[in-house]
């Protein structure tokens, strides 16, 4: 509790602080992980701030650190009945990077999410540079299962919540223990190709053992120990034409334990998750999409109740409406966003799904902070296909600090 209050206070202070040198900070203190000098790279926009471009605000010798937080106020209504209004810390994240040598770094990142009241160690990894554009890493890290999982800092996001496909199918934030390589090559003369290939612990048996109401892949995420002796493989490849990006990723591996207390309880069962994501700019809009499909091998005793196929997709369109928002205050901006999304928790049933539309009007007092006014409307269907409508108004504030 104390930690939550302290984080909220820190974030409030960050919001009240004068417009900072966020862009400067980003350019000075960012430690590019895998950008080759030969490839043209656009400066990071707030939406592009991820692990490699986070605007660290502190440094000492070879250590840099930073973080971000989010406060939320919301008014939620379920089928015309309002839930108690809530005010909470949405997310608090702290990250650091230590330069151990010219080629080796240690990265750490931890996050608290109010929903589902989860503390996640997102990163605790050693990174070794292998030439100019490639590196190897080992430890706990965010798996490259979609663009959102790699880059989901609250202040960089234009909506009050990440997409349903990200949180409900892919389990963002989804960190696992493993090792692998990543880097950048060339798809064509002007188009970089980014890749990451890892062997990781994979999802665990929480996919069914901790899943409430049917298969829920996020219930088996953040797995820091192997349950079955077989690692999962995860890989993502993305081309970056212009300022856009098109990526595909797949993770495949066994999720269950086959023995309990020495007794064999089941055979090895696999979960395969495929994602595709895209980012494009057109007509002043930034368009982002992410889709995912999952195949889950379900034990015979649970067939019919636990889904063997799930999928989801989202499409976001955001636009800067005015920048600067105030003539004398450079760095401010007003932006708006619309999102449509759906997830189907059981493709074998007509129901068990959620479909949502959301709109957001955002003010950035500085590039590293955001104040969002949001609205959403959701059609939630149970396994009988009965509809429950949900909606809400949200006011959220997020900032790097």
């Amino acid at each position, binding site marked *: 509790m104390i930690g939550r209050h302290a984080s909220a206070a820190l974030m409030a202070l960050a919001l009240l602080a004068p417009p900072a040198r966020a862009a400067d900070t980003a350019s000075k203190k960012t430690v590019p992980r895998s950008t080759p000098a030969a490839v043209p790279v656009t400066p990071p926009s707030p939406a592009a701030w991820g692990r490699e471009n986070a605007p660290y605000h502190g440094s000492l010798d070879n250590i840099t650190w930073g973080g971000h937080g989010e406060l939320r106020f919301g*008014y939620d*209504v*379920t*089928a*015309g*009945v309002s839930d108690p209004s809530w005010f909470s810390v949405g997310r608090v994240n702290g990250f650091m990077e230590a330069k151990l040598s010219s080629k080796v770094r240690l990265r750490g990142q931890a996050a608290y999410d109010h929903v589902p009241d989860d503390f996640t160690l997102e990163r605790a990894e050693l990174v070794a540079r292998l030439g100019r554009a490639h590196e190897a890493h080992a430890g706990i890290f965010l798996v490259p299962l979609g663009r959102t999982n790699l880059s989901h800092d609250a202040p960089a996001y234009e909506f009050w919540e990440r997409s349903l496909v990200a949180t409900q199918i892919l389990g963002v934030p989804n960190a696992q223990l493993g090792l692998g390589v990543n880097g950048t090559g060339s798809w064509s003369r002007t188009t970089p190709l980014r890749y990451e290939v890892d062997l990781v612990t994979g999802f665990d*048996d*929480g996919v*069914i*053992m*901790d*899943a*409430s*109401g*049917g298969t829920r892949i996020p*219930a088996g995420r953040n797995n820091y120990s192997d349950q079955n002796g077989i690692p999962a493989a995860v890989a993502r490849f993305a081309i970056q034409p212009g300022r856009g990006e098109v990526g595909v990723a797949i993770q495949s591996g066994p999720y*269950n334990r086959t023995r*309990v*207390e020495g*007794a*064999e*309880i*089941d055979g090895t069962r696999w979960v395969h998750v495929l994602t595709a994501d895209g980012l494009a700019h057109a007509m002043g809009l930034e368009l982002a999409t992410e889709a995912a499909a999952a195949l889950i091998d379900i*034990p*015979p*005793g*649970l067939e*019919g*109740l636990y889904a063997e196929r799930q999928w989801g997709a989202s499409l976001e369109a955001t636009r800067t409406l005015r920048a600067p928002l105030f003539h004398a205050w450079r760095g401010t901006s007003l932006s708006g966003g619309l999102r449509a999304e759906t997830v189907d928790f059981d493709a074998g049933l*007509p129901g068990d799904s959620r479909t949502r539309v959301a709109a957001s009007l955002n003010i950035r007092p500085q590039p590293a902070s955001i104040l969002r006014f949001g*609205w959403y*409307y959701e059609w939630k269907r*149970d*396994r*009988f*296909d*009965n509809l429950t*409508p*949900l*909606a*809400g*108004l949200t006011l959220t504030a997020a900032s790097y600090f």
Partner: protein
Amino acid sequence: MSHAWRSQSRIAFCAAGLVLAALVIVGCSNLLTTEPPLGERFDQPLAGLSNGELGDFQDGHTQFRKAFTINEGLGPIFNNVSCASCHSGDGRGVTGNTLTRFSRGTDLDYAEGGPQLQDKAVPGATPERLPSGVDVSYRLPPPVFGVGLIEAIPDSAILAGEDPGDANADGISGRANWVTPASYLPSDDPGAGASRVGRFGRKAANSSLIQQVTEAYHQDMGITSPYRPTENVNPAAPAASGADPAPEPEVSEAKISDIAQYMRMLAPPSPGEMSPARERGQTLFAGARCTGCHTPVMHTGWHEIEALRNRDVQLYSDLLLHDMGDALADNRPDGSADGHEWRTAPLWGLRIAREFLGGDLLLLHDGRAHSVDEAVRLHGGEATAARDAYLALPVDDKAALVDFVESR
């Protein structure tokens, strides 16, 4: 004059502001979902509950919808993961979650896993398979709304409708199902006692909502409670040690009580508006002697919850057992009910049942009838005369009778 003009313009400005605010509020109400009208759903509370009771209702609502995970105690063998996943919208279930009861004659066959087949199992456990040669009864999960009103009907009111020897020679000889409530029931439970009139379930084999919830948790979900602290297991294939990792009991007495209280306070949907055609259907319903069993109104007595006390209940059931003939017989006993007897099914809620059943109606104990007409045609035994009277009606009259029944 100028002051008056300023005052009028201020009023006009305020009025315009109020109109704008009203428009925004109206718009917001649509943008923020709207509440379904009272009486249009199965999961709404009774009118007249106190604030404390409404709080209890909400607690029970949450527990009713709670889907158990395996690590929380689901299984080792089970049928479904929550109360709500069997009762669609708190109404009846669908054929996909029909429960299978079995026995060997009057033997409920506990040695072979009876009286209910659990066809799902957690990893490390094996689902039950139906033993060969047993008597089988398929049971659609019944609606759970209105059960508090049924609980509040005194035994004496149910017994008043009995005519086991058919003394009035009308061919209908309803009788109560006298049951022995579970010994674990608290003494202050309305259904507790040495011998009580059963009223819940397809064969009225249960007198207590606490017992109903406890057994549903134990049999349907594999969730143990202080009332039933031992796991239900497949006798043919015991589960591996550690397959169900949750310590017993997996829910507390309070959680059981929460759900029982919730169900007590669930209101039945409002019946539809009467029209001349429906009044004709009502007259035909009585004329065909359907009301011999489907008693239109019963009256509650005293109950701890004031909203349940001393009120008329339009459930269209006498809560008695009747021989329904060979076509509906499951040849399987339940309490003192034999294989031909079924409790008269309440007809309330049929008006909106299709909305929660994918457009179907799923009538009778196993959902085999997809319309009221089909259900009536399957009636036999004590209902033979009523069925024949219905079948003899002209087409328009049949339609009026069916429309009346489906408007309840």
